């Protein structure tokens, strides 16, 4: 059985009651439910680190709780980043990862997970077992990728990065911390694969990439754009001029879901494998202003 005792804070003047409290907790064998503060969390170390049985437990937990977004083997999926590279976007200490698992990351798709502390540590142990140290940098020339994005590639027409660019496509300012390099490469080659559902719900994400849609009003006006939201009775669209439109479906003669993204596919004639590698290196480096500040 692993040692689950809580680390005790050290300030001298209140040490007596704290020692008593910690001793009581240790005797009772209670693992702290959650670190109460960042300072406290930073002191936490994975009590299960390196234990092969616990790593195995963590692997099961990961598959049933995390693989849906982060992919099997934590190699990244359609909704979450690769966690096997040793690149951590929200803090790289054991305590940071433990916290992220239990509390989630507001403003991202990462939810708070209903795991016990022991289970969270098992997942941390599993993730650490995958990680190669030091992190392997992905190949490609970021500068060359940026030149394509901002130049001939015309990506900026639809995608915003750090406040500059278009609005029709998703903002990519932090896409490197949200998606794996493999996912990004696949998305550039095959943008129509696995489009997100357009409806926004409490338990769904705001569409990261939505499909193209064309509506025709009863008086014959045609509007083409990307879905911003849709329900049984109404539809919300952003057209190519970045104007928002809202319609009741009963006022439309036709609604066509095109089953594809407005983003054009880029095969090897349009974008060579070397250029693709450069683009992915550039996008992978986009980790948002907060990530920069943390460094």
């Amino acid at each position: 059985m692993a040692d689950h005792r809580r680390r005790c804070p050290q300030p001298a003047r209140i040490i007596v009651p704290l020692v008593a409290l910690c001793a009581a907790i240790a005797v009772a064998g209670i693992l702290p439910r959650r670190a109460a503060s960042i300072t406290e969390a930073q002191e936490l170390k994975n009590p299960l680190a390196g234990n092969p049985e616990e790593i195995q437990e963590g692997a099961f937990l990961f598959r049933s709780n995390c693989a849906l977004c982060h992919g099997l083997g934590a190699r990244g999926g359609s909704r979450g980043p690769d966690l096997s590279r040793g690149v951590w976007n929200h803090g790289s200490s054991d305590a940071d990862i433990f916290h992220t698992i239990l509390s989630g990351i507001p403003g991202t798709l990462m939810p708070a997970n209903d795991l016990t502390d022991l289970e969270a540590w098992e997942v941390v142990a599993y993730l650490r077992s995958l990680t190669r140290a030091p992190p392997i940098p992905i190949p490609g020339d970021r500068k060359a990728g940026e030149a394509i994005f901002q130049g001939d590639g015309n990506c900026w027409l639809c995608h915003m990065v750090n406040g500059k660019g278009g609005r029709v496509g998703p903002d990519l300012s932090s896409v490197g911390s949200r998606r794996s390099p493999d996912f990004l490469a696949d998305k550039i080659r095959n943008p129509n694969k696995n489009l997100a559902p357009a409806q926004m719900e409490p338990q769904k994400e705001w569409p990261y990439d939505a499909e193209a849609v064309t509506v025709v009003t009863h008086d014959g006006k045609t509007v083409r754009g990307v879905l911003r939201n849709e329900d049984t009775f109404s539809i919300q669209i952003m057209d190519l001029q970045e104007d928002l439109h809202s319609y009741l479906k009963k006022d439309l003669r036709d609604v066509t879901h095109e089953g594809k993204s407005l983003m054009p596919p880029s095969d090897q004639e349009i974008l060579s494998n070397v250029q693709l590698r450069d683009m992915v290196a550039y996008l992978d480096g986009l980790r948002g202003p907060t990530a920069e500040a943390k460094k």
Partner: protein
Amino acid sequence: MKLRFFLLAASLAALVSGSARAQVAYDQIVHSSRQPENWVTYGGDYSGSRYSQLQQVNTTNVSRLAPAWVFQTQLAGKFETTPLVINGIMYFTGPDDHGYALDARTGRAIWRYERNLPAKIPACCGRVNRGFAALGDLLFMATLDAHVVALDAKTGNLVWDVEAADYKLGYTFTVAPLAVKDKVIVGISGGEYGIRGFIDAYDAATGKRAWRFYTVPGPHEAGNETWAGDSWSRGGAPAWVTGTFDPNLNLIYWGTGNPAPSDDVSERAGDNLYSNSVVALDADTGKLKWHFQFTPADAHDWDATEVPVLVDLNLDGRARKLLAFANRNGFFYLLDRATGKFLLAKPYSRVTWASEVGPDGRPRLLPAAAESKDGTVVCPAAAGATNWMSPSFSTQTGLLYVSVREQCDLFVGIPQAFHPGHPYIGSVYFKPADERPWGALRALDPLTGQIKWEFKYVSAPWAGVLSTAGGLVFSGDMEGYFIAFDARLGKELWHFGTGAPVYTSPITYALDSKQYIVITSGGALFNFALVQ
């Protein structure tokens, strides 16, 4: 002063005389259709019809339906309750085993109950509760920490509290109990944790357990041979949706859930009785009268925890006691509810795992749906063609209304070791690339399984259905609309945006000669009536 005292004494006397009769007698539940102003049991009546004789709100005036009042619980979590309404008071539960009594006229709270639950409960799918049962002056709640409790309907005070099982091992309750005669019937949840499922009956007055039916037979019991080795001991087969009752046959009908682990059959070779079945139990003893298994040796998490709706119809020129079951596996079934005899099955959604259900009631499997190393796309998805949300059977139209999920999953099997109290699933599911899930409300002819009409939703719904003698059907969608339909034609007649997904079934009641229609959504309970 004297007059005031006299009035006080008189009103006290009235209260005392009022309390002399039980609020809900068993006979009242048996004959609930004669009292459509109340909603006395989970399914509206013992047959699970969710059909009301009220017709003040009807196809010609439903466009004038508007909110009468809204009650905000201010709780987070899925609000999956079915409220009860008894003599002008509304009783319902909320997430985390909260309970409420409201003045059904105004929505003002009369009492509130909150259970002191453990912080961590192994519950697969949310800390939800699906409602109270009522009998006499008591309300019954089955709790997330696997207790059954009785509350005083007038005060919310705890009357008794019994433990059914150990929640730390994955046993939980989310079900609304069913009150039958002098007993309270509950079914356990926990199919994702390798529990051994059961259906329990408790004495309503004392809380003493009257009987237990294990949904997985133990050694030397018939059916145990359908489990390889000791796999029965962690076989799952929970019973987490309220069943139905036939007072004449004295049989309780209850759906059972998936075998555990839900998607890995490697260690539980066999049919795995009585998982994914409907069981007919003697109401007095809990003895099994018959069973029918919809999905033997299930590998897709297709719990048969849908409501077994009891319908009395003429079949081949004879009046028959039937059981209609729109199953999570994509087939609609019709059974003889006296004998359990299989009568027909027909797909009511996209089905890729079986070509048909044979005359023996067993599915004819398609090889394309077999497990493979890289995963297999199967329709319906793990959440099923429908799920626990209640269907409704209208005696006016003779149609069964079912919320349908058109969705497929990529099932990837991953064998998983069993540890008590930990998830025991053996698979992960993914939305297949380019798959666009959607949904519908479908009206089925229960005698043929034919789809008479459908109304399409943009996404797969979790809301149940209510039908009324006003020629109406009510349901909701994941985008938050509460919708009224013409029961015969399926035409949408009215809708209201509640602002959060609808996760339960509507009810209706009457007070002061006014019909009300109720749905919960988000943390709120919405109550609608006609605008004058």
